[in-house]
């Protein structure tokens, strides 16, 4: 329980919105960084995921690129 969840997103991407909605619906607490406004976090996201597409989710160190519902469920143990 209590996995650390970080979301790297932009405000203009619908998959980011949907990914965050999905986390909210499942009562998952997460920290969100808007990588369009936060260059440092953008770099961190690129470092972690080795790519530049959003959203990126970091679930206890497990990196998920895109709104991969099944992958997110598995990582969260839902």
């Amino acid at each position: 329980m209590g996995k650390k969840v970080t979301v790297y997103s932009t405000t203009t991407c619908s998959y980011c919105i949907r990914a965050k909605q999905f986390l909210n619906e499942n009562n998952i607490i997460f920290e969100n960084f808007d990588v369009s406004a936060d260059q440092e976090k953008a770099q961190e996201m690129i470092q972690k995921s080795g790519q530049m597409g959003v959203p990126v989710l970091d679930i206890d160190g497990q990196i998920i690129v895109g709104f991969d519902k099944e992958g997110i469920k598995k990582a969260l143990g839902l």
Partner: protein
Amino acid sequence: MLELIIIGAGPAGITAAVYAARKRMSLLVISKDIGGQAAWSGDIENYTGYQFISGPELADKFAEHIGKYGVNLKEQEAVVGLKKSGDIILVKTGKSNYETKTVIIASGKRSRELGVPGEKEFKNKGLTYCATCDGPLFSGKPVAVIGGGNSALDAALQLVNIASKVYLVNITSALSGDEIMRQKVESDQKVELLNDTQVTAITGDRFVKGIKIKRAGREEPLAVEGIFVEVGLLPNSEFATDVEKNKLLEIQVNSRNETNIPGVFAAGDVTDVPEKQIIIAAGEGSKAALSAFRYLAQHKI
């Protein structure tokens, strides 16, 4: 057995779902995503009722609207086959098989690829097909938009607010697309328009560092850190092997959205309907749902 399966949840599919739900048809929507290409659009200023709405916001409104009717939705599921035998239509996805009496194909279009070396390797590593989604990551960097139509112009206009420089690489001798957007692009200080120019390769190490361009028979490198490919669209119609299509692989429909297969309807950008617009796709979706409803009333399956 279901009365209706709608393939796709863009403007056409969602509108069809709203109409079908209001007719109390038993239905299922199968789609990879919600919003379709509309979710990828930047600013939408021609959808009646909204003087201005962004693509992601409109997609959100779509999701809300079908949510209100409790429509059964299989998201992130891709249809791979469609077969009619007798009165039953079998819809096959990567995960399951579904049986239904009618189908509306509203699977839309996807971005066409450039087909040059480096494209696959650098996808999401500086190369993207969605300026709206990924544009903000290229803040202060030089980028190239490949294409010369409306979507390329839209991408360029989004990127001038973000990037340090926007090269617009256009293979033809002049931009196409709407006059009003062309003027905005051509008068923008940050945009450098390269007409009659072909992209021959994407280059870089871990991430994109540039492209190779060819003009007047000479190849030269162009240093950019972001590449936005906007070179047109392909219909997502491959799974519908028995349905008649035109040369562009768009599904042929009549004014009632009927295809050559009774009970199989199609709507929106995947069809040969003239003009691909969000509002046209939505209207076509409603027509297709009403046609499917009428078909069920007339054919006691």
